[in-house]
């Protein structure tokens, strides 16, 4: 009989601990959204653009502000070797299509500023680029690494996701398909 209150105390303490762990786990799960698969609306976000890489846009832009354009969202990082392979292609297609209602958005992932700006300078990038602060956009888009590219149509619907570096020909083909749609 004397051991019963001790048992109750131990169980209560255990429940308090488990409740704390459950609360944290629930919060982490709630922070994760579903991956925006093709056919689903692209999650809206705010991107803080790097100075000198705003392409005439304000310092902070929302994806929803670009509605009506075909948007190519490219997640990259300066330390990512595969990203270097497609950097020039992205810049080339931006220059080709920017006057045809196509926007390329570069989202810098887990990068420090100096190497990121050096990367952009190396490839003479002119399309808007910004830092994904606290990986909020990466989490919303559930990216698994870099590079990852999302193709979004004029209505803000994700049409294709590519988890690999893209060639210029591939980029052009996908953009042309969205323009003609």
């Amino acid at each position, binding site marked *: 009989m004397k051991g019963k209150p001790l048992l109750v105390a131990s169980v209560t303490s255990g429940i308090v601990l488990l409740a704390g762990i459950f609360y944290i786990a629930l919060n982490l799960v709630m922070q994760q959204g579903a991956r925006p698969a093709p056919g689903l609306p692209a999650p809206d976000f705010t991107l803080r653009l790097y100075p000198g890489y705003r392409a005439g846009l304000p310092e902070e832009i929302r994806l929803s502000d670009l509605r009506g354009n075909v948007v190519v969202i490219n997640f990259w990082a300066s330390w990512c070797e595969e990203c270097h392979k497609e950097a020039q292609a992205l810049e080339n297609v931006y220059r080709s299509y920017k006057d045809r209602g196509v926007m390329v958005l570069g989202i810098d992932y887990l990068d420090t500023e100096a*190497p990121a700006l050096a990367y952009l300078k190396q490839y003479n990038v002119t399309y808007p680029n910004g830092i994904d602060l606290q990986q909020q956009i990466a989490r919303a888009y559930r990216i698994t690494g870099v590079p990852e590219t999302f193709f979004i149509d004029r209505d803000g619907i994700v049409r294709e996701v590519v988890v690999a570096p893209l060639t210029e020909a591939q980029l052009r083909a996908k953009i042309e398909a969205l323009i003609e749609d």
Partner: protein
Amino acid sequence: MRIFYASLSLFLVALLAAHPAQAQPPAPDEPTYRIAKQLNCPTCAGRNLADCPTETCAQWKAEIKTQLDAGKSAEEVLAYFQARFGPTVLQEPPKSGVTAPLWAAPAGAALVFLASVGLVMWRAARRSAATPAPAAAEHNDPFIAELERQVRAGE
């Protein structure tokens, strides 16, 4: 045979001499290292920034050094990394927000446990103070207890 042993000894001596140079760890007294020790590698789960050899971590360590050279304090550097990359970048989670229960739960559980133990001890002490000392030793055996009761009652 003597030549073989001499060569082997020379080889072993050379190997031992070379080993410390190859396995030289980063200097733990360097401020950059001390700050990096408080951060996580962003791309390898559970790995410390200071000990991670990836390109990402090399860049981050360079950033720490740049900021320290610019006169920033360790706290300012850590605050920069937390603001830019989120609280998960810190080896020790902050004691606020979502992670607050992580710190509060063990303390809460310990408090509940200690309070319960204290209550049990207090009740036991009160019970023993209120109960008069038995005239004779008590027995758990109901037969002996009944026998003692009858003897005391003079039955």
